[in-house]
C-alpha cells in the first residue's frame, strides 16, 4: 500500500471523527453554531498535515484499517465480517475495482480483507482480470458499475430466493448503502434542505472522501447556507489538502470564492500547487468588482479593473463585458458603459440583461430616440427591459424642445405604455399631446393614468390643467376639490389669477409654475414645465427605477420645481441608501416634501426615520406640528389641536397667530377661562383675531348664563 493511500485513509478517519461528533448532536437549527468548537480544531489541522509522515504512519497501523476504510459505513445490515471463514474470501469487490481501474479503492479493499483475514494474500497482480466463476455475482457488479442500482437489488433478491444461504458480498452491500445515501444527500441538497444535508453527511463519514468530491461540495454549500462559513471552509480545505484531481481542485476553490466571505476563501489559496488557482483569482476580482458594480457607492481597485478589462476583451462570453458595463453605468460613465454593453451584446445577442444595460446607457446619454428604437424589440423580454424602454419613452417625449416623433413610433409607444399601464409614461404622452395643442387628447391621457393609479398627483394636476385649458371650469373644479387638501399646486389652480393660459403663436404652451411663496411666475423655458421636469432633473428614468443615490438629487430638483409629491417619492427611494448621510438628507427632504403637499403624518414619519441634526429636527418638527395643529383644528379635533400646539412649544415659541388658534380651540371646547386668558395675551399685541375671540368668549359665556 502506498504511503499516499495511508495518508488519505488517516485523513478520512480524521474527518470521520469530526463529522460523527456532529452526528451525535441533536438536529441543529440553522444559525446556532455550536459545532465550530472542539472536534473541528483537531480534525482539520491533521487533514492539512499531509506531509507529516511519521505521525501518519503510526496512526495507520493496518489493524485499525477496517474501522477507517470508506467501505465500512456504520449501520449496514450485513453480518459482521468475522462470520466468514478465511477459506472463502470474497474477492469480487477486488475484481470490480480492478476492472474500474480504481486503484485507490482497490488498495483499500485489500487492506480491509487483510484486516479481516490475517492469513489472506491478495492476488499477485490485482489489476489483472481474475478468473472468477460466479457469473451471477459478476453481473451484479457490472450492473452496479453501470449505476443500475435497483437492478442490483433485484438480482440480489432473486438470488436469495433461489439460494437462501447465499449472502451478497459485504463490499457490494456497503457500496449500495453508500450509493443510497449519496443519492439522498444529493436530492436534499438539490431541494436546498441544508439541515438534512448536514445530518445525512454526519451519519455517513464514508462519503466524505476524495472519491465523492461532489458530496463534499454539497456539504460545504449546506454549511455556507446555514451561516457556518467556517465549517464550509473546513470542507473545502479538506479537499484542497487531500484530493488530487486538478479539475476538482480548481472547481473547489472557485466554489469557495463564490460562497465564502473573501477573507475565508483567501486562506484556502495557501493550498495552491503552482498557479492552478489563477482562474479562481480572476473569480475573486469579478466578485469584488461585481459587488461594487451593484451599487453606486465606491470605486474598484484600478488593478482589478485592468485585469477584468483584459479578461473581458479576451472572453468568449458576455459576463465580464456586461459586468464592466454595469460598473461604469452606475458610475455616471454611460459612454464607457455603452461600449462594454456593445461588447457584451456581440457575445450574447440574446441576453436581455445586456440589452437592458445597453438601453439604460443610451438613456443616460440622452440618446432617447436610439434607445426607444433599440428598446422596443426588448420591451417584452423582462420587466427590467420594459422599465428601461419606458424610461426611453419618458426621456424622448420630455426632450426640450419636443422632438418630432413619427406616427408609427408614437403608435408603438402607445401600445407598450397602455399594455404596461405605466403612469409616468402615460403622463408624458399627455404633456406631449398638450404641447402639440392636442389638449383633448392630453386630457384623455391624464384621465387614463388616473384610472391606472387614482392616487397619482401628477396626473390629477395634468388633468386639472388641461381641463382649464379647455375652459372646462366645472370639470377642473371636480379635480381641484378632490385634491386640494393633498396637493398645494392643484389647490392653487382653483384660485383666481392662476388660470392657465394658452399663449404665444406657436404650439408651445406653458403650464403654470409656482414658486415656494405660491406666486405664479412665468416659466423661463419655452416648454411645458411639468412635462420637462424629469429631463430637467437630470434623468429620464421613472422615479421608481432610480437608485438611492440618483434619487436624492432628483428629489431636490423636483422640490425646486415645486412638485412635492414626486419629490417625496424620490426621497423615499433615497432613504433606502446604505449611506447614513444620504439617508438623513433624504428623510429631511421627504419630510419637507410631505409638509409641502400637506401630508403631515407622512412628514412626521419621514422626519423620525433617520437621525437629523438638532437644527433640522427643530425645523421639521416645528413645521410638522404647526401643520398638524391647523389640520386638526380644521377637522374640529380641538383637544388634539391643543396637544399638537403643546408639543410644538417644545421646539419653538408660539407665534401670535398660533396663540390665537389655541384660544379658538379652547373656546370651542368651552374652556372659556383658558380662552379668555389666551385671547387677552394675544389682543395685547393688537391682533384683531384675538379681539374678536375675546368678544366671542364674552358672548358665549353670557349666552350660557
Amino acid at each position, binding site marked *: 500500500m502506498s504511503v499516499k493511500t495511508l495518508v488519505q485513509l488517516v485523513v478520512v478517519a480524521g474527518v470521520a471523527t469530526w463529522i460523527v461528533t456532529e452526528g451525535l448532536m441533536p*438536529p441543529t437549527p440553522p444559525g446556532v453554531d455550536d459545532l465550530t468548537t472542539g472536534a473541528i480544531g483537531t480534525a482539520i489541522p491533521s487533514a492539512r498535515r499531509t506531509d507529516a509522515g511519521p505521525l501518519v504512519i503510526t496512526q495507520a497501523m493496518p489493524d485499525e484499517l477496517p474501522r477507517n476504510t470508506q467501505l465500512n459505513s456504520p*449501520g449496514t*445490515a450485513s453480518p459482521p465480517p468475522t462470520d466468514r471463514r478465511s477459506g472463502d474470501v470474497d474477492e469480487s469487490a477486488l475484481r470490480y475495482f480492478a476492472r474500474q481501474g480504481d486503484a485507490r479503492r482497490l488498495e483499500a479493499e485489500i487492506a480491509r480483507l487483510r484486516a479481516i483475514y490475517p492469513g489472506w494474500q491478495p492476488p499477485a497482480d490485482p489489476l489483472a482480470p481474475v478468473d472468477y466463476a460466479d457469473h451471477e455475482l459478476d453481473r451484479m457488479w457490472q450492473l452496479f458499475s453501470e449505476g443500475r442500482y*435497483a*437492478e442490483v*437489488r*433485484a438480482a440480489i*433478491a432473486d438470488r436469495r430466493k433461489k439460494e437462501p444461504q447465499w449472502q451478497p458480498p459485504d463490499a457490494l452491500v456497503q457500496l449500495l448503502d453508500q450509493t*443510497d445515501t449519496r*443519492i*439522498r444527500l444529493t*436530492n*436534499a441538497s*438539490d*431541494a*436546498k*434542505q*441544508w*439541515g*438534512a444535508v448536514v*445530518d445525512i453527511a454526519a451519519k455517513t463519514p464514508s462519503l466524505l472522501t476524495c472519491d465523492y468530491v461532489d458530496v463534499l461540495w454539497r456539504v460545504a454549500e449546506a454549511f455556507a447556507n446555514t451561516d457556518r462559513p467556517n465549517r464550509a471552509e473546513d470542507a473545502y480545505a479538506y479537499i484542497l489538502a487531500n484530493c488530487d484531481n486538478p479539475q476538482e481542485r480548481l472547481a473547489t476553490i472557485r466554489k469557495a470564492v463564490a460562497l465564502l466571505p473573501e477573507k475565508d476563501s483567501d486562506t484556502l489559496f495557501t493550498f495552491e500547487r503552482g498557479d492552478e488557482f489563477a482562474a479562481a483569482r480572476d473569480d475573486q476580482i469579478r466578485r469584488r468588482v461585481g459587488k461594487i458594480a451593484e451599487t453606486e457607492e465606491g470605486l474598484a481597485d484600478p488593478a482589478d479593473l485592468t485585469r477584468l478589462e483584459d479578461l473581458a476583451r479576451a472572453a468568449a462570453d458576455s459576463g465580464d463585458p456586461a459586468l464592466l458595463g454595469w460598473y461604469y453605468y452606475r458610475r455616471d460613465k454611460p459612454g464607457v458603459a455603452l461600449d462594454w454593453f456593445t461588447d457584451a451584446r456581440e457575445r450574447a445577442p440574446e441576453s436581455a440583461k445586456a440589452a437592458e444595460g445597453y438601453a439604460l446607457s443610451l438613456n443616460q446619454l440622452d440618446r432617447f430616440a436610439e434607445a426607444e428604437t433599440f428598446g422596443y424589440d426588448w420591451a417584452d423580454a423582462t420587466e427590467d427591459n420594459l422599465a428601461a424602454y419606458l424610461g426611453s419613452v419618458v426621456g424622448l417625449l420630455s426632450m426640450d424642445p419636443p422632438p418630432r416623433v413619427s406616427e408609427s413610433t408614437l403608435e408603438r409607444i402607445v401600445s407598450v405604455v397602455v399594455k404596461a399601464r405605466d403612469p409616468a409614461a402615460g403622463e408624458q404622452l399627455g404633456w406631449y399631446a398638450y404641447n402639440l395643442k392636442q389638449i383633448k387628447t392630453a386630457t384623455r391621457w391624464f384621465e387614463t393614468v388616473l384610472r391606472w393609479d387614482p392616487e397619482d398627483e401628477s396626473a390629477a394636476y395634468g388633468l386639472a390643467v388641461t381641463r382649464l385649458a379647455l375652459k372646462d371650469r366645472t370639470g377642473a373644479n371636480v379635480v381641484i376639490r378632490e385634491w386640494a387638501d393633498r396637493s398645494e399646486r392643484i389647490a392653487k389652480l382653483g384660485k383666481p389669477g392662476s388660470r392657465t393660459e394658452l399663449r404665444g403663436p406657436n404650439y408651445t404652451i406653458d403650464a403654470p409654475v409656482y414658486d415656494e411663496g405660491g406666486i405664479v411666475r412665468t416659466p423661463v423655458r419655452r416648454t411645458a414645465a411639468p412635462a420637462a421636469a424629469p429631463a430637467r432633473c437630470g434623468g429620464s428614468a421613472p422615479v421608481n427605477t432610480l437608485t438611492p443615490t440618483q434619487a436624492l438629487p432628483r428629489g431636490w430638483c423636483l422640490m425646486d420645481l415645486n412638485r412635492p409629491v414626486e419629490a417625496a417619492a424620490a426621497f423615499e427611494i433615497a432613504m433606502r441608501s446604505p449611506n447614513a448621510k444620504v439617508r438623513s438628507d433624504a428623510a429631511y427632504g421627504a419630510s419637507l416634501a410631505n409638509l409641502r403637499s400637506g401630508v403631515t403624518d407622512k412628514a412626521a414619519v419621514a422626519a423620525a426615520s433617520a437621525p437629523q441634526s438638532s437644527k433640522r429636527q427643530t425645523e421639521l418638527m416645528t413645521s410638522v406640528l404647526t401643520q398638524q395643529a391647523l389640520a386638526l383644528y380644521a377637522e374640529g379635533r380641538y383637544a388634539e389641536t391643543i396637544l399638537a400646539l403643546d408639543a410644538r412649544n417644545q421646539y419653538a415659541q408660539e407665534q401670535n397667530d398660533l396663540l390665537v388658534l389655541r384660544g379658538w380651540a379652547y373656546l370651542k371646547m368651552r374652556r372659556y377661562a383658558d380662552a379668555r386668558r389666551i385671547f387677552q395675551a394675544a389682543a395685547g399685541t393688537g391682533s384683531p383675531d384675538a379681539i374678536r375671540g375675546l368678544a366671542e368668549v364674552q358672548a358665549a359665556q353670557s349666552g350660557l348664563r
Partner: protein
Amino acid sequence: MSASLLRRLAVVAACYTALPVAAQPAPTMEGTVSGAEWTAYADHFVGEDGRVVDDVNGGISHSESQGYGLLLAYSAGDRDGFDRIWTFTRNELLIRSDRLAAWKWDASAKPHVVDVNNASDGDVLIAYALGLAGESWRNQRYSEAARGLASAIGENLLTDANNRIVLRPGAEGFGRADNNGMLVVNPSYWIFEAFPMLEKLAPDHPWQQLAASGAELINAARFGPARLPTDWVAISAEGLTPAPDFPAVYGYNAIRIPLYLLRAGAKSGPLLENFEHAAASIGPAIIDIATGQPVETLTDPGYRMLDAALACAAGTPVPEDLRRFEPTTYYPSTLHLLALSYVRERQPQCL
C-alpha cells in the same frame, strides 16, 4: 356551527365511534392482499426502482402513493417489494430537514422533487407501514426510520384548534395566519388505523387525542343536504365550515374517509350513517355539498368497492365482480385493494 354544538358532538363521537386508538392488538393485516393481486398491482403501478406511479396524474409519484405502496406490499407480505419502495421513498422523498417527506416527485423534472412541501397523509402512511414491517419482520432499520418519521409528524404537524389536537395538512401553509385565523384541515388525512402504531413509535405525542378529534371532526362536518364532509374543512372559533378557496365537494379526498373508519374498526352506526346513506342513495360519486347532488359519477370498480365495504359492514355480501381485483388506474386500484384487505381482515363473511 357553534362551539357548544361542537362540544356536544364531541360527546356523541365519544359514545358512538368506538374507534380503537391504543391498547388493542392491531390486526396483522399481512396476507390480506394476495400474491397475485399484489403482483398485478405492482406490474401496473410500481417501477423496478420502487417508485409508485400515479398514472392518471401525469405519471408523478407522491408521498401518498409511496405510503400506499408500502402498506400494500406489507399486506401482501412482499419483503423485497417493500424494500424497493422504501429505498425509493427514503432516497427521493425523505430529504427534508425536518425529517418529513417531500410530497411531489416528477420523473420529467430536474430535480425530480418539484414540491418539497410535505403532505401529512403521506407521512402518516409511510410511518405506519414502516412500523408494521419493522415490527412483524423484525427489521431494525424500518423500525428506526418509523420512529424518526413518527416523531417528526408529532413535532411538526400536530396543533391545537378549539382545544383539540388536530393534524395540519402540511408543515407549511394552511395555518391560521394564511387563512384569516381559520385552520384548514383535511379529514381524510386522519388515517385512524395508523394512530395506535404511531403511539407505539412516538409515545410522547398525543395520538389518542388526535384520533378522538378526528372522529369528532368527521361526525361534526356534516355539510349540506347530503350531510357529508368536504375534502377540506375550515376550523374557526365559530366551529366548522367547508374551507373557503377549496371546491365545496365530497371529493376524491373525502371518499376515503369511510374506508379509513372501517379499517380502524368502526361499526355500522352514527359515525358511518351519512356515508352509508350516500352510498345507498347516490352510489359512488363526487358530491356537490351545496346541492347534495352528484357532480361526477364514479364507475371504477375501486370506487364501487368502497361502497361495497360500507354495505358489508351492515351485512351485505360483496358483489361477485368486485371480489376479483383487476388493476385500472392507480388511485381506485389502491382503494380497491385496501377495501378488499379490510373485508378479509374484519368481515370475511361478506366474501
